[in-house]
């Protein structure tokens, strides 16, 4: 509060007695500027007519300082002006007028507004800083995971290989078997670390600025890739025409490879995998729903929630190898594109995995 008349300052102070704020009083512009050096203000109440430095001059000076350039003002004055260009720097921050004599409630409302705005801004700044810190922590965590966890594994894997290569004759059959297990498991853990990193980096990935991609071409690529992953299985794929979608091609490639791969992996031992891929348009929600149906071992629907969780598995590693990242990655990718994932299944009959993607492409574009 800046006013050359102590009785005015006192009146303001009395008015604001119930406000949960700390008040600082100055009887001239210079004192006000000094105070602004040492304190952080949410709002300034300025009298306009003061000797030496008037309220406008003071406002100008405050606007020139970085610390106070967007400090809001309420000018309290007997004169009212319609012209907002009364002081330099008015455009940098909010200000308001109250003309004397004023209705106390009018001034109180204005003050409440500015205080509330200040508090919200402070909260926002705090939250942003917190978010920034958390992100930095996460980033340095994944960095040390990628670097520090891999180094000892390389030694385990490397020396067990060397032992097998160079000192095989000194080990009996059981010893060699143990060593093979150590070697294989170290490799598996390395894969796990890589997958986990991929998964955590998915959060930082931007999926905007994507192109319309042909799912028909993509699915054939993925089918061929999955066939190569399972030589000697010869799964049969039935693929219906699929729509074009706007998406990150590499990521959707991963979605299909994971889902088709699962359909082959979780096959029944005595049956050729038969996998049916199709899509339908959900007009109500303006989205496409893709489905991948298999005739595999299936799962009990009471575990359906667990299916898409990180490191969640419904089978032991002896039954089916895996690390529980694949479907979590599928869900994360689909969610990042604005879609959903779900599944239906019956044990020993087969499963159907679904995912949706927004249908943002106009009908005529789809015809082409």
């Amino acid at each position: 509060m800046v006013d050359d008349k102590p009785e005015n300052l006192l009146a303001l102070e009395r008015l604001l007695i119930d406000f949960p704020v700390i008040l600082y009083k100055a009887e001239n512009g210079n004192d006000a500027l000094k105070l602004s050096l040492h304190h952080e203000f949410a709002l300034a109440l300025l009298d306009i007519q003061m000797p030496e430095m008037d309220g406008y001059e003071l406002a100008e000076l405050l606007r020139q300082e970085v610390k106070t350039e967007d400090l809001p003002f309420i000018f309290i004055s007997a004169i009212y002006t319609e012209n907002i260009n009364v002081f330099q720097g008015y455009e940098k921050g909010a200000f308001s007028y109250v003309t004397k004599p004023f209705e106390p409630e009018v001034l109180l409302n204005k003050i409440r507004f500015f205080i509330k705005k200040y508090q919200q801004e402070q909260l926002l700044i705090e939250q942003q800083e917190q978010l920034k810190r958390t992100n930095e922590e996460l980033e340095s965590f994944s960095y040390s995971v990628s670097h520090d966890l891999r180094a000892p594994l390389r030694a385990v894997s490397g020396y067990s290989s060397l032992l097998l290569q160079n000192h095989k004759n000194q080990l009996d059959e059981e010893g060699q078997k143990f060593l093979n297990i150590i070697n294989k498991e170290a490799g598996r853990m390395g894969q796990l670390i890589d997958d986990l990193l991929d998964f955590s980096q998915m959060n930082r990935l931007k999926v905007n600025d994507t192109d319309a991609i042909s799912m028909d071409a993509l699915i054939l690529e993925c089918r061929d890739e999955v066939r190569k992953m399972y030589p000697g299985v010869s799964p049969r794929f039935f693929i219906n025409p699929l729509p074009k979608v706007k998406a990150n091609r590499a990521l959707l490639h991963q979605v299909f490879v994971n889902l088709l791969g699962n359909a082959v992996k979780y096959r029944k031992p005595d049956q050729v995998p038969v996998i049916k891929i199709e899509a339908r348009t959900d007009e109500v929600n303006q989205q496409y729903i893709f489905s991948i149906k298999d005739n595999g071992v299936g799962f009990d629907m009471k575990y359906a929630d667990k299916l898409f969780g990180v490191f969640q598995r419904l089978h032991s590693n002896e039954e089916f190898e895996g690390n529980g990242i694949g479907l979590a990655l599928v869900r994360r990718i689909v969610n990042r594109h604005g879609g959903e994932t779900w599944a239906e299944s019956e044990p020993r009959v087969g499963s159907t995995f679904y995912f949706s993607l927004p249908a943002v492409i106009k009908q005529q574009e789809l015809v082409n």
Partner: protein
Amino acid sequence: MSNHAEILLCEDNSSDADLTIRALKGKNPSANIQWVKNGEEAMDYLLARGSFEKRPIEYKPKVILLDLKMPKVDGLEVLKEIRNHPETKTIPVVILTSSNEKRDIKSSYEYGANSYIVKPVDSQKFLDSVAELSSYWLSLNKPGY
């Protein structure tokens, strides 16, 4: 300890260094490899200072294999120093690291790395990639000195 190393390996982790040397020797048993544990030692070797002061400075390695994450002076700082010094600025530097982080890859090239290799965990892949890169830099590549 050879005075005319063809490969300067800068690696703080001794088992990684040992495995790398074994992989290099496996393919090329006569290869001369100098192992240094940190950036300071690397610069001492390259500039024939400190414990390497008797080394003739004109013998430059055909390639420097540089780990990124090392105590005290990290790999990027070493790389910067190598590129800033007239005696060493043209020596090929291959970053050999566990880090698959984009920012590490980007800044390595920005500081003038010639190649960037992520060390595979899988031992066979690790042996293969080290053997492959040594045959490239020792036999195929022609250095500018």
